[in-house]
């Protein structure tokens, strides 16, 4: 038996699967049996029934702002109404009602803004490191080895020529490198240290390390800085990059930041998107400078333990500082030479203590 007093909501509706719009009423016929599902009828201006369904078959859209609530019938008819309270009475509170309440313009939002700022800081300060450490742990040693091989191929192809150093010169530097290796405290899994020489006139006096343990030194470096102590501490610095996984960290960090920025910022509109990515670049530069300082500390320590004079790195940067001015720090991947000399002095004092 149908109940005598049907509840009803007025609003606007669209015919099933069509854009035909009409003024409509939603009539609820509750059953006397409390456990049974109520029936809902959609009627047009003339009072004729357009569509019928039981309550549980009707899809009720979650509330969003002050938008009319939308109710979709199984046959594709759609009813919309601004009578939010009545919809809630008849269909119950929406699962996402708490979200709608949270989104309302209210002083509480100030707290949410602060929470966002704090969360961004947390992610930047700790979250990224956790994600990056996880990614590094998941990277098989074989892949790291292959990165070395691939990068070296690319460098040889693009900018390096075979070394022209004499066998004695090479042997001398290799000897220094070999003396350093036994003094490394912990070597990451799958690291195979090797020292290679290349002639790179375009790059000048330089040395760099690849994540798998390949250290490359240019002929130009050996020619310009032949002193054992300088060679030892610069090689120690490059070994530091390998041991502390700086190369992998930078690759994973920029990848993670890129994905997070894309997901979090969403559609920012013209101009802003480009600026966000430029900003990301500046941040990654600061990260790279931290790595340089950390590798300096490592290099000084390693050279010292292997019996070289730890002042070698300092005299190297003092000579570099004399060669000319440098860009401001925040535009560079490396700290400027003067600052490095100052921090290296600190590291040397730590050693003497």
């Amino acid at each position, binding site marked *: 038996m149908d109940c005598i007093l049907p509840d009803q909501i007025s609003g606007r509706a*669209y*015919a099933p*699967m*069509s*854009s*035909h*719009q009409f003024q409509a009423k939603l009539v609820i016929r509750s059953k006397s049996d409390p456990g049974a599902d109520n029936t809902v009828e959609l009627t047009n201006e003339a009072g004729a029934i357009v569509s019928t369904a039981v309550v549980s078959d009707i899809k009720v859209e979650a509330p*969003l*702002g*002050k*938008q009319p609530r*939308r109710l979709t019938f199984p046959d*594709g008819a759609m009813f919309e109404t601004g009578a939010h309270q009545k919809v809630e009475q008849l269909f119950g509170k929406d699962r996402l009602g708490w*979200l709608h309440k*949270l*989104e*309302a*313009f*209210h002083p509480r*939002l100030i707290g*949410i*803004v602060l929470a*966002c700022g704090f*969360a*961004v800081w947390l992610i930047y300060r700790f*979250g990224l490191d956790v*994600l990056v450490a996880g990614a590094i742990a998941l*990277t098989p040693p074989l*892949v790291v080895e*292959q*990165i070395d*091989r*691939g*990068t070296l*191929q*690319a460098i040889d*192809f693009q900018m390096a020529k075979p070394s022209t150093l004499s066998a004695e010169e090479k042997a001398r530097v290799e000897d220094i490198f070999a003396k350093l290796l036994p003094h490394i405290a912990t070597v990451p899994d799958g690291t195979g240290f090797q020292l290679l020489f290349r002639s790179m006139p375009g790059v000048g006096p330089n040395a760099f390390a690849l994540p798998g343990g390949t250290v490359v030194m240019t002929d130009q470096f050996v020619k310009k800085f032949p002193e054992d102590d300088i060679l030892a501490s610069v090689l120690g610095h490059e070994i530091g990059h390998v041991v502390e996984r700086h190369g992998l960290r930078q*690759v994973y960090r920029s*990848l993670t930041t890129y*994905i*997070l920025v*894309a*997901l*979090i910022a*969403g*559609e*920012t*509109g*013209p*101009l*802003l*998107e*480009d*600026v966000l990515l430029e900003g990301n670049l500046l941040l990654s530069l600061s990260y790279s400078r931290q790595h340089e300082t950390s590798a300096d500390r490592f290099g000084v320590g390693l050279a010292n333990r292997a019996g070289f004079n730890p002042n070698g790195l300092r005299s190297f940067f003092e000579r570099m500082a004399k060669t*000319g*001015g*440098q*860009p*401001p720090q925040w*535009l560079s991947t490396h700290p400027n030479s003067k600052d490095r000399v100052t921090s290296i002095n600190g590291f040397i004092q730590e050693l003497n203590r």
Partner: protein
Amino acid sequence: MNDSAAHDKLRPFDFRGSAKEWFGIWIVNLLLTICTFGIYSAWAKVRRKKYFYNNTYVEGRNFDYHATGKQILIGRILIVVAIAVFQLASSLNQWLALGLVGIVIFFIPWMVARALMFNARMSSFSNVRFDFVGTPTRAAIPFILLPFFALATFLGLIFGGGYQLANGEPIGALLILLAFPFVVFIYPAIDRQMKRFSVNNHRLGTAEFSLSAGYWLFVGAAFKAALLLILFIAFSGLVLVFLSQVIGGPFAAFVTEVGDEITLEENWWVFLRNYLATLFVGYFTSVFAALIYQALVRNVVYNHTILGGEFRFRSDISAGGIFWIAITNFVAVVATLGLMLPWAQIRLAKYMADHTFGVAGGSLDRFVSVQGEAGMAVGDAYSDIEGLDLGLPI
């Protein structure tokens, strides 16, 4: 009198969203996205699209977006995993990397077609779903083949010309000079093919969209954008000359140093100024030129699109208007560390809606839905992360 008669037939687009209301939704989206390490971003996207679609009205009927957060999330996970594998694999070996780029290029038309279809089938107006019937094969022409040949020709002209010049052949200068008109004439042709692919394959229910805009209208937009770009560069050049000649001092050095090779042996101030000058002149002006071109092309597309053989559209965005909105929005957002972003987005949406109209045509009651599966959101996720703009052009 003509004017008022024409206005009678207009059906203005009306955007009813408010910055206050959107701010609350946006900040909650942001907080939940951060707290879940980006996972909630899928649901956040749905809420954002729903908010902007729901608040866009034509004659009291609005748009709606029907995708669920779960669908978007699955698409995004697949794409993020694919990107990670791609990055890792391509750092192993340069030939493997080259092969992977080939595979990705092969998949782009598929992604584009899937993204357009997913987005169309998840969108509705007045209870009727949109649809998209374009195939990946057809997408390959405007999205891969034409850009590839155009880019190859452009780079050929630039580098070929540079090579000739370096060898003392004056014909090289001619080749390089040819490269720029090439952009103004060829890019609009490719863009027109993209727009035709997008518009002509969209449906509202069973009603078909069709775009009849000719090639020269697109060239006209490119010409206007290029002209504004040249005027802007000339103007900023004049300002610099004025500063250096009349005010002098630090500005005098500026003009002579711009364009000099940047050597680190000079002091860092020179480096910084040159860096900023290059960034400003080279980068921002081209971004603005692109923005203005897109605004003008939007007008062309709307003004030459017919829906269901009877419904026409009108868009009258002005280059100056969109330029002003972009600049002031940018300043407001940066100055408030992003807090004004919701306001800026609402303002842009309002401006767009205020300059968009339906024109004449019969009753909006006549559209009928067709049923169709939307498929996976992989293409949609790809276009989100790569920043492609493939949504409905509302």
